[in-house]
């Protein structure tokens, strides 16, 4: 885990939507794990964005951050991170209805179990709730587990 922060360099290059989101989140010192949760991006994709921003000298790695959250070692668990990202995706697509799935998400013991459950949920949404929401959630789930 590393902590990043924006540099003083002005933003004078064209960035993609995700890159701009990550750049703006780095206004304050923030770890890559928290960044992945807030930006709702897979860690490997986030790493590529961070590398690009580092190359552009738009952000820097902060060493020994004084305000490092104490719960972060727990958050490095990929299962916990994926659960958080999945819940964020569900809330984005289903709004308040997403809360009723929280207990089921928390109950999953492995990534494969979580992926299988997510795909079943997509199927259930497609058949009984909304095809549009199901398509959007499927895209997010595929990005999450690729």
């Amino acid at each position, binding site marked *: 885990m590393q902590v990043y922060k924006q540099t003083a360099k002005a933003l004078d290059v064209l960035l993609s939507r995700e890159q701009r989101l990550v750049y703006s989140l780095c206004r304050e010192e923030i770890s890559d794990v928290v960044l992945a949760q807030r930006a709702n991006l897979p860690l490997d994709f986030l790493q590529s964005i961070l590398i690009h921003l580092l190359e552009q000298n738009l952000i820097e790695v902060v060493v020994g951050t004084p305000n490092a959250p104490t719960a972060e070692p727990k958050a490095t668990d990929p299962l916990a991170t994926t659960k958080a990202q999945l819940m964020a995706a569900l809330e984005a697509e289903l709004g308040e209805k997403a809360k009723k799935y929280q207990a089921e998400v928390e109950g999953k013991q492995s990534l494969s179990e979580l992926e299988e459950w997510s795909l079943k949920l997509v199927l259930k*949404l*497609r*058949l*009984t*709730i*909304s*095809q549009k929401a199901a398509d959007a959630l499927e895209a997010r789930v595929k990005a999450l587990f690729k």
Partner: protein
Amino acid sequence: MIQVLLAIGVILMLYNSYVGFGLKGKAPGGIIGERLSQLNIFIALFTLGYLAVGVLTWSYPPDTVLVILSLILLFGAIFVFLVLRLVQAVLAVLEG
């Protein structure tokens, strides 16, 4: 005989209407929800049709054509009942 067959058909269709509109609450949208809306409209129309046939032919003397008609209507009601049972089973699997 004809009246009994028609009465069974009408009762079954009224039950089908009740089940069909109840299922809509479990699947408000999606593929099943959309098809269920269309299915419910036709179930309601068929129920009205059954009632109309029952009222119009109640005093008719029994003949072969009316027996065949009432049997077709009854089997139609059974068909709708089976379709709804299938939808119920699919929703139960999705819930599980």
